[in-house]
């Protein structure tokens, strides 16, 4: 067994252990510190104050963090396999911006008030439009430069859409606040409603599981994968649909949270290698852990928004990655 195999076998239990630790920390850290014993009592309604804090504030926030972390990281992983480029991610390619633009349009036009499903649906529509544009602009196997330029152009275009909506509704304070929330990305005031909206991410994760092996073959190229017996068209369709919906749902409940889809799969690939059978579950749990950690950092650093923390971590990481890949 190679050293990488040994690391690969240990990676999932270690990541899951880290995930559990951060879940407990996420429930415990706040204006009122709750130790694990109080968290336990609160969860079983033996401690009324802890119970209120947990069920009304911290538990939904923690669950949304786990769901969007897993969705963004696995969405990034799928996009990297699809485009055969380790710098592809929902944020850099504009898919998250598409989701945010869709959500912002729904809020700006006042459609959000009609149904709680309007914003997620519009986020999915926006993300689909952006994904379609990326596919046209940068096909599979496209160079890093082409991919990034396509992402820059799309992000600028979709940014213009959100700015237009924002400038047209300057008088409606509440809508503006919501729009700004989406643009900055965050987990503040997340409720059980948001947990339900994001819950299809679990289904997406289940559907993603069997695609691990075909993704290995596809990441060598569509023609090679087809020669080996992969139904490329069907697998790629499923990959794209899942990556788009996962990213869109994450954006619909937490706004634009950048770099998760880039950093997490990339780091995991460096540690355990590129086999997707390992990377799919690891991305789900690793993404959840990363977002929980970033949220905790933000909460401990004077309530910094999640999107700001992930960008502060992800920006330098991305520049390092770019420098490394250009060597």
């Amino acid at each position: 067994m190679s050293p990488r195999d040994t690391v690969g076998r240990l990676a999932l239990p270690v990541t899951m252990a880290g995930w559990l630790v951060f879940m407990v920390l996420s429930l415990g850290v706040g204006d009122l510190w709750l130790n694990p014993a109080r968290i336990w009592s609160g969860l079983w309604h033996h401690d009324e104050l802890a119970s209120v804090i947990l069920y009304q504030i911290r538990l939904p926030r923690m669950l949304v963090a786990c769901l969007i972390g897993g969705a963004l990281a696995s969405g990034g992983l799928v996009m990297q396999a699809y485009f055969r480029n380790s710098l592809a991610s929902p944020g850099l390619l504009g898919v998250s911006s598409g989701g945010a633009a869709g959500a912002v349009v729904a809020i700006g036009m006042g459609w959000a008030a009609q149904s709680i499903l309007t914003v997620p649906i519009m986020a999915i529509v926006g993300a689909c439009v952006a994904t379609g544009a990326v596919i046209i602009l940068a096909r599979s196997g496209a160079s890093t430069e082409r991919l990034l330029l396509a992402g820059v152009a799309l992000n600028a275009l979709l940014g213009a859409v959100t700015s237009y909506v924002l400038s047209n509704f300057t008088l409606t304070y509440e809508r503006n606040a919501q729009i700004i929330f989406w643009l900055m990305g965050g987990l503040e005031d997340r409720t059980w409603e948001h947990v339900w909206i994001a819950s299809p991410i679990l289904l997406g994760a289940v559907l993603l599981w069997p695609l691990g092996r075909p993704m290995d073959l596809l990441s060598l190229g569509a023609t090679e994968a087809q020669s080996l017996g992969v139904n490329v068209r069907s697998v790629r369709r499923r990959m794209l649909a899942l990556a788009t919906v996962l990213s869109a749902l994450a954006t619909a409940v937490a706004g634009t949270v950048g770099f998760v889809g880039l950093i997490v799969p990339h780091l995991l690939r460096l540690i355990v290698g590129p086999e997707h059978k390992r990377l799919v579950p690891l991305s789900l749990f690793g993404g959840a852990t990363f977002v929980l950690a970033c949220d905790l950092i933000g909460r401990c650093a004077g309530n910094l928004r999640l999107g700001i923390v992930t960008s502060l971590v992800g920006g330098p990481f991305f520049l390092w990655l770019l420098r490394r890949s250009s060597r």
Partner: protein
Amino acid sequence: MNTPAVSLRTVSVSGRLHDVSLDLGPGRLVGVIGPNGSGKSTLLQALCGLLPAAGEIAWNGRPLADIPVYDRGRQLAWVPQEARFEFGFTVRSVVAQGRYAHGDDGAGVDAALDLMDLRPLAHRPVNRLSGGERHRVLLARALATAAPIQVWDEALAALDVRHALQTLKHADRLKRAGSTVLLSLHDLRLAHCLDEVVVLSDGRLVAHGTPDDVLTESLFRDVFGVTARMAPGLTLELS
């Protein structure tokens, strides 16, 4: 008469290949030759079902359109001209991909690694290998498939002389076991190893037959624009 392992009837690929009809029997080692841009890779990809093509293609008498993609993976091994790897899969895992259509059973993977001298590199990331080593990995993957139709697109071009001769030996072994091995090549000094030669020019089939029948002075002049002169020269064989 035996059913051809590969049969093409008026196969065309828009702008690149024109009305190619061809029957290749089982247990044959076939070379596809022609100048740059003559359509060799296009022909090979079309007969593998990897390019949309007009006309009829059949494997062992069965129309390609009727063969599910997964089953094709058991019948075909394709080695691409370029060996590009974005991600650092280990050599062993790339070779093991040849068993995908066999339910990832791992059969023959170690033997294929040995055949291409890759055992010492088995745990190395494939994107850190040299061009020739990468091609050996792809050839090992093709050998691991144990597919009856082997299509190797300029697989020998990147190999050193020992590995090129070794690869031809493996191709000969596969042929004797009943496989049809197609390889495109530029080094016509290797033509004496082939059973049949298919010659393409400007996307059209201009000749098909045994090397002795096909590789004539007039063909070299008309297709390649060179003068061929038979002369004793350097001969290399595996020691």
